[in-house]
């Protein structure tokens, strides 16, 4: 377009950015989507998607070189040979850890929509009310009913398989036919719900895997190789869903290798006029102008962009007038749970690899339950029949080979809790002006930790898991807490929260930056509290809602 002029700029191409691009282009806007990393084309660029174990030289493991290049990613399972190209190289993208913070990033078109866990749940009405009721942080400026139609809208397009379970704690949505619980999970569900008199529930994990053909996508083939990119388009990603929809309008320009360094701000009009980018390959600087800007760069990078913008007016950046920009970092804390053995199903097995597990919705601190901490947690897990029967000690040879070639006599069942982390003002990110990346840009410094409320909750997260599995007849149950560092949940939230008052929040109830109403932040950065459910579906709904609002305001001439 002439003079790099567009109707709208979308920063980032992950789950939120993809939705923003789709919604804005479908409403007729000319949009440029800026992505800091390389392009990844649907199917063609999923280099590992159909590879078998033996085609990886280290059979999917990690080499010492990988450990050296990925000093953050190595801290947990994401560092492995099968999806190495879908994570950014930590050594090229440093940051500062005042306290440990595990930041696992995907810098490429599609972002982490390619590697996400796909668990898709609605927040419930209590999630939006809890801050106000308990006097925590600030009140959400919206309620469940504001978002409910947008959840439906997002679910219908993304394709979420799930069951209508009729639970107030986990609102039903517009689902595709659910995947099935296996025979052991069905049995445990029955026992659990009987034992707890229907106050605790075990359901199929709702996920963004399609169980019927949808648009141009083929339904899930039960390979469970989702995070390598799916050649069938079986799960929701930018590439499989929102990007083709946006491209179909003819209104989208996608520009990879575009690091947005700042939002350009006109202090007289009190509005953004566009963005400045650094071409990651050529180091050239360009400006793009537009009427509206959607910031969807992933929670902490969205805030990084704001922090670097309009610093001539606000030294700490656009949106910092509240004193809350960069504060209230949240994640979901997890890695506590229990697992054990299930006897008596040796005549049954599974066929196919289901890309979701079971879910046990929150039961703590709801209705009459009251604990010595606030909020709660849900469990993800599943039952499976592992491989290998027991052999006598020191057995090798044909007997060992045979024993390892058949399924075990028993099944295993495990559950892991995901808990809500409160928004604490002291948990913050800030620009580290001393340290620069290879483009000379300041990096983020992290000062984030979990506190008493989370620590108390973790005790229940572990003990409740054991109690429930035992109540459901699982044998040899062992509970665990593997320890948690903030960020490991890969659910970064907060730092540019929504609120009702510009003095204590960065965004209003329509995701507009109070100080620049034509700038919208709709990814994890906008979250006022975290709930305990996986957040991506909420970003989809929030982005679609904000895009709808933005276009109607634009038409009215309000922004």
């Amino acid at each position, binding site marked *: 377009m002439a003079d790099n002029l567009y109707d709208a700029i979308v920063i980032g191409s992950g789950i939120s950015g993809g939705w923003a691009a789709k919604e804005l282009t479908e409403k007729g806007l000319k949009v440029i989507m800026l992505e800091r990393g390389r392009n990844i084309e649907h199917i063609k660029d999923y280099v590992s998607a159909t590879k078998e174990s033996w085609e990886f030289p280290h059979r999917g*493991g990690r080499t010492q070189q990988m450990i050296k290049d990925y000093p953050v990613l190595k801290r947990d399972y994401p560092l492995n040979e099968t999806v190495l190209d879908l994570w950014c190289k930590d050594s090229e993208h440093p940051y500062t850890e005042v306290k440990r913070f595990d930041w696992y990033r995907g810098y490429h078109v599609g972002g982490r929509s390619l590697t996400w866990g796909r668990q898709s749940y609605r927040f419930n009405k209590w999630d939006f009310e809890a801050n106000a009721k308990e006097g925590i942080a600030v009140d959400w400026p919206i309620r469940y009913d504001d978002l409910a139609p947008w959840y439906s809208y997002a679910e219908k397009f993304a394709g979420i398989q799930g069951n209508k379970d009729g639970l107030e704690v986990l609102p039903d949505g517009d689902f595709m036919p659910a995947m099935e619980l296996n025979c052991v999970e069905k049995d445990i569900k029955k026992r659990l719900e009987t034992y707890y008199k229907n106050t605790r529930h075990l359901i199929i994990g709702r996920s963004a895997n399609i169980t019927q053909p949808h648009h141009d996508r083929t339904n899930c083939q039960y390979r469970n190789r989702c995070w390598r990119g799916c050649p069938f388009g079986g799960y929701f990603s930018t590439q499989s869903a929102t990007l083709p929809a946006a491209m179909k309008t003819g209104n989208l320009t996608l520009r990879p290798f575009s690091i947005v360094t700042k939002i350009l701000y006109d202090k007289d009009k009190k509005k953004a006029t566009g963005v400045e980018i650094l071409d990651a390959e050529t180091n050239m600087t360009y400006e793009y102008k537009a009427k509206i800007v959607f910031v969807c760069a992933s929670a902490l990078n969205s805030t990084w962009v704001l922090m670097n913008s309009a610093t001539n007016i606000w030294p700490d950046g656009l949106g910092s007038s509240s004193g809350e920009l960069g504060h209230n970092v949240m994640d979901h804390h997890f890695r506590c749970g229990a697992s054990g053995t299930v006897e008596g199903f040796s005549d*049954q097995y599974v*066929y196919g*690899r289901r890309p979701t597990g079971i879910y046990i919705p929150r039961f703590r601190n709801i209705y009459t339950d009251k604990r010595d901490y606030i909020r709660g947690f849900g469990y993800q897990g599943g039952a499976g029949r592992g491989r290998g029967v027991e052999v006598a000690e*020191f057995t090798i040879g044909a007997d060992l080979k045979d024993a390892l070639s058949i399924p075990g006599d028993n099944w295993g069942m495990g559950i892991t809790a995901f808990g809500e982390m409160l928004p604490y003002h002291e948990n913050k990110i800030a620009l580290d002006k001393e340290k620069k990346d290879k483009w000379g840009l300041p990096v983020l410094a992290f000062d984030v930790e979990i506190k008493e409320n989370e620590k108390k909750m973790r005790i229940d997260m572990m003990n409740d898991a054991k109690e429930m599995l035992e109540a459901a007849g699982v044998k040899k149950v062992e509970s665990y807490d593997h320890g948690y560092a903030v960020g490991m949940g890969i659910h970064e939230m907060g730092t540019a929260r929504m609120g009702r008052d510009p003095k204590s929040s960065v965004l209003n109830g329509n995701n507009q930056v109070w100080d620049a109403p034509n700038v919208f932040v709709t990814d994890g950065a906008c979250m006022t509290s975290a709930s305990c459910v996986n957040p991506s579906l909420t970003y989809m709904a929030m982005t679609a809602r904000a895009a709808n609002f933005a276009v109607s305001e634009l038409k009215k001439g309000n922004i």
Partner: protein
Amino acid sequence: MERRELLKLIALLTGGAVVGGEVFLAGCKTAGKADTGFTTSTIALLDEIGETIIPATVTPGAKAAKVGEFMKVMVTDCYTEKQQAAFTNGIAQLEEACKKATGKSFMECMPEQRHDFLVSLEKEAKEFNNKRNEEDKPKREAHKAENEKLAFKDQKEFEGTPSHYYTMMKQLTLLGFFSSRTGMTETLRHLPVPGKYDGAYPYTKGDKAWAE
């Protein structure tokens, strides 16, 4: 996830975390040299060690899965210097122990002798690893206590004493075999594109397991 199951299974069988697996504690010193001294005859020896652990039966064994070559790649790329040294020294130690026990080199032994000898190494490895675990425990705890006094950026990761060399060889045999084409498609049942899910699929005793 399934890969993790395989690693868990091997760890359980061999009493130690699998090097190069996701559970491997990162941050150890990186390997300095690519040449870990694997010659054609070393690879042939490792193939035979592997074959003794997982032999050809009605289906091909570890040798057909080229576990010797696999061990070379893994030890060279995935092991720390300490672990590499333990493994390569282990090859000589194994030969020496074999001579002592049988009067012959491993390659000269008959399959039955090889089997019995490796069983005796299994026992030795178990004792070695148990003792190592005990000795490393206080060192690990002291290291942790030391780390807690430091700022996060100054903390170092603990590298314990490597497992017995035989444990490494057995782990790599199991990992290499069960993730190989022959292991996954002939010894196990392989389903690249299942197309459907059945959570109550009939099972008759003796039916093979699915490849992960």
